[in-house]
């Protein structure tokens, strides 16, 4: 489609940000001082020099106002033109078709003032191309709608399921608070938050950490006399109840975090994109074009299986700059959902009949030996050390071997792969299960690998490389395949993506 560079500009007026924009601009600068101030208020400690930066605020206010005055944008027929800068002027011209994602961010203050921060993300580049801090909520939604309505004009690469295009969004997943509480029970976010909070506090005041450990150590020292008197049992009971209390507290924090983060979670999809909105105080509203979805990860831990729930996330092809914002390069499509909900979400994006996988093919019959041997050999090292120290008692470690044997047998029984209906899928795991899958046409390169150990057992590994595969995601790799089957699978995938 030829893009006329000159638009009939006269008819679309130049627009400005929300009049309160300068306030949010200023708050954004102030954000880094908030923690030291709070810390100072609450503890009366801290280093004063961290507050010296506040002096600069006197200069910041006029700058923020100037930024508001100089920022203008114009919505053309197929593009948005953003002008900014007071002395150093920048004109940014972004075609709607190049915009991959429009997100609205709302903090508490944003919501009180009925405004939102709009980010326009394009595929390449180091950071998002356009950041509009802030627009009135109505204008923001309108802009989002204009940009989204525009990519409906471009035909999608492959209409999912080949159905007739429907423009109205359908809700794929909605999380009521009961589900969020379950999510809190399952997740370990509470512990991560507490550790991060301690780390942050120690960073501001290094003496704090020393005092904490001193007082803890001192308490133990003072009470060491009682230990002999009262006996170890009461201390063990006390310690256990303390641990239990800590565990419950952490779970409560997890639940609170889940509710704050995911309150009002709605995942909806139309013909072209999936949209997510969530958050209690900080409201997030973003969308992901279906074509940007790469590989999928489905997980079910032990606790999740008790609740019959799964977690689903996808890798999204996105610019390098958004990688640090975890949410936006790896989308948590369903933090918690039952099997039905998962199938509904996957079915909305994948080709028909791709999911759930009808037939999982098994690995090499000797696959369990490979899973068993490596840890079994490794276990010989601690075994040797224990026998050296504790003599015959060290042999107790041998009891780990039956467990290893059973767990590798079960692991192999649950592992499998599938290549059918335009989908390549791998499943692994026994106590915690993982499914990793992608549409075959999303595969960028196919690897066939054979280690010396593979060769001994007549096995090989097939690995499919996809775009922006997260380093914490399991690889889309089928391990321990019979060699001939691996070659066959690699040929089949190669042929499918080379067309």
């Amino acid at each position, binding site marked *: 489609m030829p893009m006329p560079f000159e638009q009939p500009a006269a008819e679309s007026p130049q627009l400005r940000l929300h009049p309160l924009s300068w306030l949010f601009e200023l708050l954004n600068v102030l954000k880094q001082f908030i923690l030291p101030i709070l810390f100072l208020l609450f503890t009366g400690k801290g280093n004063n020099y961290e507050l010296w930066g506040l002096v600069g605020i006197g200069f910041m206010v006029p700058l923020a106002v100037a930024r508001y005055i100089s920022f203008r944008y114009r919505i053309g027929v197929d593009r948005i033109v953003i002008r900014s800068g007071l002395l150093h002027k920048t004109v940014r011209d972004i075609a709607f078709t190049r915009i991959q994602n429009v997100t609205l961010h709302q903090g508490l203050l944003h919501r009180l003032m009925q405004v939102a921060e709009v980010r326009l993300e394009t595929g390449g580049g180091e950071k998002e191309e356009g950041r509009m801090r802030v627009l009135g909520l109505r204008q923001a939604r309108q802009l989002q709608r204009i940009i989204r309505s525009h990519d409906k004009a471009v035909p999608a*690469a492959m209409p999912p399921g080949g159905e007739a295009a429907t423009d109205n969004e359908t809700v794929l997943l909605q999380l009521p608070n009961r589900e969020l509480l379950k999510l809190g029970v399952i997740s370990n976010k509470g512990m991560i938050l507490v550790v991060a909070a301690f780390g942050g506090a120690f960073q501001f005041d290094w003496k704090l950490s020393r005092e904490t450990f001193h007082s803890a150590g001192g308490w133990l020292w003072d009470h060491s006399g009682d230990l002999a008197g009262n006996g170890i049992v009461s201390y063990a009971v006390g310690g256990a109840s303390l641990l239990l209390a800590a565990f419950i507290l952490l779970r409560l924090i997890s639940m609170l975090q889940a509710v704050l983060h995911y309150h009002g979670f709605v995942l909806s999809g139309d013909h072209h994109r999936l949209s997510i909105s969530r958050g209690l105080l900080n409201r997030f509203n973003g969308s992901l074009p279906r*074509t940007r979805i790469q590989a999928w990860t489905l997980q079910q831990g032990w606790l999740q299986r008790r609740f019959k729930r799964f977690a689903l996330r996808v890798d999204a092809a996105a610019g390098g700059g958004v990688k640090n914002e975890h949410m936006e390069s790896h989308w948590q499509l369903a933090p918690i959902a039952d099997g039905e909900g998962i199938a509904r979400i996957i079915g909305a994006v994948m080709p028909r009949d791709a999911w759930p996988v009808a037939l999982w093919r098994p690995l090499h019959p000797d696959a369990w030996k490979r899973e068993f041997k490596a840890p079994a050999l490794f276990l010989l090292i601690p075994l040797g050390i224990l026998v050296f120290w504790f003599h015959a008692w060290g042999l107790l470690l041998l009891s780990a071997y039956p467990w290893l044997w059973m767990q590798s047998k079960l692991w192999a029984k649950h592992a499998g792969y599938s290549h059918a209906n335009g989908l390549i899928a791998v499943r692994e795991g026994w106590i915690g299960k993982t499914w990793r899958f992608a549409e075959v046409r999303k595969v960028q390169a196919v690897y*066939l690998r054979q280690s*010396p150990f593979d*060769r001994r057992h007549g096995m*090989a590994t097939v*690995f499919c490389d996809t775009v922006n595969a997260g380093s914490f995601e399991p690889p889309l790799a089928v391990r321990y395949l019979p060699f001939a089957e691996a070659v066959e699978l690699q040929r089949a995938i*190669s042929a499918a993506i080379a067309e």
Partner: protein
Amino acid sequence: MNETLNDPRDSQWHGLEPAAKNLMLAFTVLPFLIPIVPATVLPMTLMPGWWGLAVTFPVAAACLVAGMTVGHNRWLYTRWRLDDDGFRLRKGRWWQKEVFVPRSRVQHLDIHNGPMERARGLATLVIHTAGTQSHALKQEGFSLETATRLRDALIPETRSHADAL
């Protein structure tokens, strides 16, 4: 049973340039020579007279042989094939792998040749894809002519934007 993936006698696959062999050997051997330094310094300080050399020479010989073997295998076992649909590369003697990059997934291609490669008429081909591990597949040891031919053969055809991503 126990078929091997990478067989240098397979005539359907091309090896690297003979001219590349010595360069590859030299660069592979270099890290293998590092143990020679402690194997010289320690015996020479700890043992009387020139007896230390009795340790140094065998160690040096072993390092050299190991490095040469690995380098030779690296050269011999790197094999490639250009098909209608894309590029295939096999590597490795013990840890073997075969990569297939379809032409439809190639983003762009680079040819590097430094002064050492230029003197021998060699070049390094880098194939860029949108993938994570395969975002830049780099293979040295082609002749400049072959590298250019591969580059021209693999340049992605004009296609719709909606592909691949």
